[in-house]
């Protein structure tokens, strides 16, 4: 608990001491991917459902948030709400189909992947709205109201650093609240023994859907931020690679922990910047790291660390 508070405080204090744009940029990407990792972990690590649907809501929200802001003139924050609702609706439809047919593990992964791919193809071919493969250039900036400063536009690394860090913090808090309540107990029961959960009166279908919907709604917000931060959106946001990257972060950092995916995100987003690599070499490195993690520490970095601390305390 204290260790976690110290770590979070350190993150909040960091820009006071570090002015390197390079480092802040890596951390901004870490935070946005961290949001995806944490929310995937809610569905995968905590509820036991290996979802490949994350890039779909991430991409759709990136497009929707920007299009609503540019075409309908909504402010960024207002535009994220319909985007999140769309994510929830999509998650409800896909989740209902999968969970009604009791798809588990790889079957669930493949079917969610197929749905994500269908949505990617729609985005890719809907030229009049999405501009197809060329993508969209995002103009405009999110604004926030700050006490004493009025409405300010988010620009520059420090502002983006804080915006994404606060977003990540809120994502973690929402997930932590769900998980520490009766809802989290239901998620865990479903992950560990679905049949026993049923005989204890837990509506397995409903709580799987709840986990899937909450995870996707929060992930959608990461999409909105990412589009604005990179100032560019293309259908690659919805690709399978995104799914694989986020899954790699969760596995590397430690599934079933809230901090793990953020650590995984930090390692995998900083590696290609720290070690200059071409895209192909990066894929090989990713793969190697993933294989190494699964073989040597299947619980991931944070999982292994927690186990080590527990052993030492005992």
């Amino acid at each position, binding site marked *: 608990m204290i260790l976690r508070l110290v770590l979070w405080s350190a993150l909040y204090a960091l820009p006071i001491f570090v002015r390197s744009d390079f480092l802040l940029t890596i951390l901004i990407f870490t935070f946005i991917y961290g949001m995806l990792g944490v929310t995937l972990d809610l569905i995968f690590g905590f509820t036991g459902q290996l979802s490949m649907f994350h890039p779909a809501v991430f991409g759709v929200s990136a497009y929707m948030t920007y299009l609503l802001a540019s075409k309908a003139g909504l402010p960024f924050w207002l535009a994220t709400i319909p985007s999140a609702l769309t994510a929830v609706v999509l998650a409800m439809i896909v989740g209902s189909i999968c969970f009604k047919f009791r798809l588990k593990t790889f079957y669930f992964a493949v079917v969610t992947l197929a749905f994500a791919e269908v949505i990617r193809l729609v985005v890719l071919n809907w030229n009049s709205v999405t501009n197809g493969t060329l993508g969209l250039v995002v103009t405009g900036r999110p604004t926030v109201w700050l006490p004493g400063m009025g409405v300010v536009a988010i620009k520059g690394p420090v502002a983006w650093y804080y915006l994404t860090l606060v977003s990540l913090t809120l994502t973690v808090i929402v997930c932590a*609240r*769900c998980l520490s*309540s*009766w*809802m989290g*107990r*239901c998620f*865990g*029961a479903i992950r*560990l*023994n679905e*049949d*026993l*959960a*049923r*005989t*204890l*009166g*837990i*509506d*397995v279908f409903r709580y799987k859907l709840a986990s899937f919907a909450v995870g996707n709604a929060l992930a959608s917000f990461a999409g909105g931020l990412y589009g604005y931060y990179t100032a560019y959106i293309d259908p690659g946001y919805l690709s399978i690679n995104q799914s694989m990257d986020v899954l790699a972060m969760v596995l590397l950092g430690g599934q079933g922990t809230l901090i793990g995916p953020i650590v995984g995100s930090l390692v995998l987003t900083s590696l290609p910047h720290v070690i200059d690599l071409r895209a192909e070499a990066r894929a090989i490195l990713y793969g190697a790291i993933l294989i190494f993690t699964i073989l040597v520490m299947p619980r991931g970095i944070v999982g292994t660390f927690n186990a080590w601390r527990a052993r030492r305390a005992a």
Partner: protein
Amino acid sequence: MLLEVRGLTKRFMGLTAVSDVSFTVEPGEIMGIIGPNGSGKTTLLSMMAGLLAPTAGAVRWQGEEIQHLRPDVIAARGIVKTFQNPQVFAELTVFDNAMVATHLALKRSRGARRLGELVGLGRAAERTLAGQVAEALALCNLGGATRQLAGNLSYGEEKMLGLAMALMCRPRLLLLDEPASGLGREEIDNLVAVLTKVHAAGATLCIVDHKVGFLRGIARRVIALDHGEKIAEGPPEAVLENPAVIEAYLGRAHAPA
């Protein structure tokens, strides 16, 4: 009557596991279901709890047909089943296992208000439940093992944890699938004490076992199954002297002529 089973049949491919079984469970009684291995006891119980869909026949709970309902809905009505091979959440502590089982109690007591817990309200309800969990665990002789992982328990302890979890669901009808199998002498004595207490608190019990001695001590009424069919019903002594039952257990040579 609390529960009525009428013409219940289950066929797996060509095998008839349960064949046209009918009986009733009266409120407040302790009834037993006996029969040799493979006679269809577990299948029958699984159908009553909604874990298996019957091929034919009906299960009525207070007049309402429930055989098509999902197991969690049936559990919510008050019919809770324990498993012959203990089922626990191996990676959770004993205490957390039992906390999972408070789901129905929390749902009943707080309804949609329990959503308030997500923003930090309703900690009191949680504490009350934790207290009840501690009580149930102590009752089941697991008071000293609450912090242990359920996966590290002995077979008998896992079974008692299964019972403690079933009790946290506040069952009106508790279906017990061979609760005494694999338990030592002392553990069985404790089990009988727990079941007697649960019964005294108002629950109806339906116990499946092939240990005749255990059931004779606790059940007032027994039905006997063989090859999926009901072959006898009545007070334990009468059923155990029934020639068809003796034949089913010991073979034709031992049956009185």
